[in-house]
């Protein structure tokens, strides 16, 4: 996952993009393969406090791009983002606040 995490004036802004080929139900049926797309993403500050949480459908673009911000976090802290997809696979990435 590509992440950019910046903090200014007590607000941390995160830009991230997961790598995931989203296969919608229609495409899956046409190519008779299993549908699969990222269904859930959650971000935590220092692995503890949830700062972002989204449930996604098949209508979010492939390689989902997210941008969010939250109050708190100082340079040096870490933001971990975890995604889960329809087939149960999941991945965690960590970014350091600059």
């Amino acid at each position, binding site marked *: 996952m*590509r992440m*950019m995490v910046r903090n200014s004036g007590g607000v941390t802004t995160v*830009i*991230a*993009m997961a*790598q995931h080929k989203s296969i919608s139900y229609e495409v899956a049926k046409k190519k008779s393969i299993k549908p699969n797309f990222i269904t859930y993403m959650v971000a935590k500050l220092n692995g503890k406090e949830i700062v972002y949480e989204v449930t996604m459908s098949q209508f979010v*673009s492939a*390689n989902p*791009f997210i941008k969010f911000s939250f109050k708190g976090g100082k340079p040096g802290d870490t933001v971990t983002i975890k995604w889960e997809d329809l087939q149960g696979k999941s991945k965690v990435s960590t970014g350091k606040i600059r």
Partner: protein
Amino acid sequence: MLSKVITGSVLTLLSCSLLSAAPYNAQAKKDRAAMIKYMEAKFKNPKTAAKFFPYTPKNELEHNFIWGFPFQEFGLGDAGYVKSVRAQFDNFMMLPPFYNAVDNGEALYHKKFANGNSFATCFPNPAITNLYPKFDDKTNRVVTLSEAVNNCLIKNSESPWKMTGMKMAYLESYLASKTTAAGKKFDIKIQSAAAAKAYRRGKIEFYSQRGYLDLSCATCHVLGAGKRTKADYHSPLLGMIAGFPVYRLKWGHVGTLEKRLVGCNKNQGEVPHKPNSKWMGDLEYFMAYMSNGIKVNAPSVRK
């Protein structure tokens, strides 16, 4: 005494290289200057735009165009002067969707051939995409970047790649991103009579109308720059190849300039020319010369 000799010889060397280069790209320089004058007049401000855009609705001219933008932004294609396209372009370029095209290219750049060499031996300095296409006097042909890559493969007894394929696109993405990082500008040279002829052939191909739609490249990319077909604004010839290899949203992956030109041929209603043909080389040579002075900004994102 010695210093006088050296400065003397340097001067003569310089003047004769100038002399030899002077006549060959004189015509090309004039064409480029006229092109810049036309494009800058066209996008100067909405008041003088009515002359260039007789059929574009007034409010579209007022609200959806960026006027008098800096010269370098011609390299962004239609994102340079269309607000709605620019907003999406800027969003995409924050984290571009061509995800790991550059990383794949870097891997290919360092991958060893059977004989132990790699692309690093052919292109020790990867930041070179602003110099291609070059004219090779020995083979009397224009050598595009894709052809240079294939020549390197053949020289190392490897099988050449498809010029419109993914491996070529990935490698060129890496080379282009290095050139962009170095902030280099296009610097295409015409240093021989044969090169000037190739440039001229490319120019004539660019401006001759072809295909069952009877369109020339200039119909859309010079006279039609800023106008649109349905919702697709046409990109300008000036700085047109600055963003190649390009990630097209339509393709969903990066692609080389040859792949895009094949697509253009089809749009014109013509059997596309072979990517490694002389026709394609001459055309790219002309288009690249027209982008001289514009910063390389690739891989880029387009419609």
